[in-house]
């Protein structure tokens, strides 16, 4: 499939899918997926509704074992090792923002962020508190530290989920539909935040999205998944794909929505 575009800078891509087929029982979701995620990029997994974007993300964070193929995390075969290796990689390197933030509803926002640190580090309470405040401060939520998730609005929940994803200083962040269900202003603020976090933390970001404005604004690489052929039909940054891709399906996706946003901009 895709030829890994190697640059002298990163000989080994940070994340790399090789011939992965994902299925739920007999039902194949995506097949023969091959793509690389470069260090420091914001990588978008694009595609229409129901094409299996979230499933691909699920597999990358270790919740769904591929039927065939390999997924490499910095050269390490993620699914070849045992459960232990996967949890270790997940804990040390992955931060995940789930679609509905998935905050633990019985705990305050502060505890949600602090729990991974309490469980997996030997830091004392005051340091954990300081780091918790920092993570919440980075997403502009430090005032909500003692609130329960049920008292937050959708956008605040997303941001709190983001703070929790940052808890253990991961270098790879996975976002499932970060701006879904947010208004354009909140959504663009979240986009800025994501870029700043990438630049500040030096993290790599993989995000699943079909929100074109935010794809064009922040993603610098990506793949386009197709629901019919069940595989990758285009590689590249969304804004370049919009201009140059000749695949009718990708064009339709990028352009029709572009027309829609143009109308919205006028109104």
């Amino acid at each position, binding site marked *: 499939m895709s030829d890994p575009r190697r640059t002298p800078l990163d000989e080994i891509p940070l994340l790399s899918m090789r011939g992965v087929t994902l299925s739920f029982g007999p039902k194949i979701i995506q097949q023969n997926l091959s793509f690389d995620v470069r260090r420091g990029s914001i990588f978008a997994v694009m595609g229409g509704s129901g094409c299996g974007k979230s499933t691909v993300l699920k597999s990358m964070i270790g919740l769904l074992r591929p039927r065939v193929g390999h997924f490499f995390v910095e050269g390490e075969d993620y699914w070849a090792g045992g459960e232990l290796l996967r949890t270790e990689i997940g804990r040390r390197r992955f931060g995940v923002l789930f679609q509905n933030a998935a905050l633990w509803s019985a705990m305050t926002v502060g505890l949600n962020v602090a729990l991974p640190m309490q469980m997996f580090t030997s830091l004392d309470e005051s340091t954990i508190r300081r780091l918790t405040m920092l993570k919440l401060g*980075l997403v502009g939520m430090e005032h909500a530290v003692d609130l329960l998730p049920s008292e937050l609005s959708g956008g605040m929940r997303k941001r709190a989920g983001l703070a929790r994803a940052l808890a253990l200083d991961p270098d790879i962040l996975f976002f499932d539909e970060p701006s879904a269900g947010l208004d354009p202003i909140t959504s663009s603020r979240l986009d800025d935040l994501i870029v700043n976090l990438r630049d500040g933390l030096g993290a790599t970001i993989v995000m699943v999205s079909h929100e074109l404005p935010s794809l064009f604004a922040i993603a610098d690489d990506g793949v386009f998944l197709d629901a019919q052929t069940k595989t990758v039909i285009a590689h590249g940054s969304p804004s370049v794909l919009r201009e140059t891709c000749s695949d009718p399906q990708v064009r339709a996706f990028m352009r029709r929505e572009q027309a829609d946003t143009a109308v919205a901009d006028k109104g």
Partner: protein
Amino acid sequence: MECIVPEVAAAQATASIFEANELTHSATKDHSPNWQLRRSVGRSVLAVGGDWIAQSGRIPEFSTSDLRVGRAGDLLVFDTVSLGKWDTGFVVFLWDVKRAAANADLAVDDSALPDAARKLLDLLPDQLSEPQKLLRRGFQPFNWLGGKTIGVFSELGAVSQLLAGTAKGGLRAIVAKALIRAVDLIANTRAAGPSALVIVSVVNFLIGAILAFVGAVQLRRFAADIFVANLVGLAVVREMAAVMTAIVMAGRTGGAYAARIATMRGNEELDALEVVGIPLSDYLILPSVLALVFAMPLLYLYGCLVGMFGGFVVSISMLNITSLGYLHQTLDAVPIDQFIFGFIKTIAFAVMIGLISCRIGLTAGRSAADVGVAATRAVVAGIVGVITMDAMFAVAADVIGI
């Protein structure tokens, strides 16, 4: 078809980040994080050195009092020559400095900081706003008592209202105008009735057996062995079968109703029903209550038989009675109106369990923990309610003379 787009710009961006990190991460000899504040004319220089790694847990604190050397309006600059590796631990410290400087009215010049750290620092506010708290007042006995009292009455009102709504729905259902679906009713009845047969059998059999044991030991002293049949028959039919079945149903079905409705509330399914115009009482509560009303009398009857059978087994094996004699004595001791009394009680229990657990589900919170709380409350309220109601029935029966 595949489109591969060369990504020169992004690759360059990556490269610059990479170099920046490489630069800032250059190691120094002194590894533990340290800082020093030097004062010169009109400016304070904060020199930071060492490795600032959050997970090491050795991040120093910085407060306004550390800035006493500076004067308002001064400039605070950083000296990062000896800064080693750093991650968010350094940013924690920088945020402390930023807030302290804002407090002491010092201007901060962050141009000496690594790019990435500056970007993160820019995201952080100057001041720590007072955290919002849930309103939690101290314990005020009178308020508490008053609140509870009002709560009990309003809850009674709400349950009665629910009862009225459900009864109206039931009446409408008879003339086939209610929005109740036969499918729901059948599914609910199956879940409440046949699926509970095993547990109802076990509980009632053992209760009958226990009654027979207790009775046998006492009655044998008076050579009144055969009256064990009276004891078991009356106790089972009047009290035990009805109460035990109701307790099983409160735990099994009541908890399930509360959890289901609470989850639906959390998912906004109830809001969706309301908007579509499907009354909750017709669609949700009526099938739930009716299912219990259909299933429980049958379970009660079944429980009576199993309970008496339990007593029969123990009596035959322990006492000197024939099986025919036991049977005859039982038929003699338990007239049919005792069953009717039991039926009435059971139907009352069924309505109460159904209404209370639905009501608790409807008032639950929206989080996962709240669903658990609702299920627990429904079971507890159901069991306490059944026993209280049974006591009231006993008194009433005594007064009427049944």
